[in-house]
């Protein structure tokens, strides 16, 4: 009799609502998380005043990244460390490599676009040879990567 009474008084937490909230949070984080992409190395892109940057079109594009050299305080020095073209790492000065890759791609995709992602701390002298390498592949249309307005 005493045992029965004890069982009846056993405290049970109702976890259903808590589980609902946790599921909501998980779904939220799944939707907002950007998983690392080999084509998009982590760079600090420029955020221009009154940015006119818009979402890229869904066409075949080659993403050319310019990764800067950083000092021990993690500040970019202005020089190029390496180039990452469609996830392929190239040496900092391998501009002919960029041109060759783009020429090959252009044969298969005549409407090819190039997105240039350069760290905002780079000097213009480090970016310009890459732009020239792109134009040497007879691609005039370059999209400059920048952050959209807040």
């Amino acid at each position: 009799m005493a045992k029965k009474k004890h069982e009846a008084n056993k405290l049970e937490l109702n976890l259903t609502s808590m589980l609902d909230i946790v599921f909501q949070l998980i779904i939220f984080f799944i939707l907002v998380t950007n998983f690392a992409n080999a084509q998009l190395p982590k760079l600090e892109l420029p955020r221009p005043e009154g940015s006119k940057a818009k979402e890229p079109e869904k066409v075949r594009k080659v993403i050319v990244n310019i990764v800067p050299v950083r000092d021990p305080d993690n500040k970019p020095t202005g020089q190029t460390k390496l180039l990452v073209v469609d996830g392929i790492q190239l040496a900092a000065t391998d501009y002919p490599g960029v041109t060759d890759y783009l020429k090959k791609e252009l044969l298969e995709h005549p409407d090819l676009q190039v997105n240039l992602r350069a760290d905002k701390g780079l000097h213009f002298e480090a970016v310009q040879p890459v732009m020239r390498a792109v134009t040497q592949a007879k691609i005039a249309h370059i999209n400059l990567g920048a952050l959209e307005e807040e």
Partner: protein
Amino acid sequence: MSPSRQDKQHAAHAAMSGKVEYTETVHHESSRKVRGPRKMAQLNLTSMLDVCFQLLIFFVLTANFVAAEGIIAANLPTGVSDADPIKPNQEPLKIVLRAKAGTDDVIIWVERQPYIHDGDFYKLYKILEGLRWDPKENPNGSIEPDNPIIIKPLTGIRWDHVVNAFNACVRAKFENVNFAEAG
């Protein structure tokens, strides 16, 4: 005449065993009632909640909230491109970006305009907007929207400033913006 306790027990036993015995009065009782009060089935959610918390912690730790990346379209000369040739009466407008000595700041100069010493690209945008000719919005403007604009960054100018200058031109609705050689 009320049934005795013995009769009741006998009848209950008979009901459980499925047999109906002849007695003076038949007391039919539900087998459920005999088993006791019904218990509500409950799922044990504890382990599921554990897994969910693990997932939640993973996503909280790995999520990084960054501003959306976009693009600003630029058309650069390729040498053999189908870019518009400069019209005879159009003279390119130069924007010079010069680094302030010993700093990452920039001094902006638009041809025939005063210097912008504080590197404020909003001021650059306002100057360009004032210069752009538009039959309705700005009939006093002196430069047509398709007039070439050349951004000339001097040595040591950060890409951030160059993109800012380019963006100011695009924002002021100029269509033909190019970069000069650095230096």
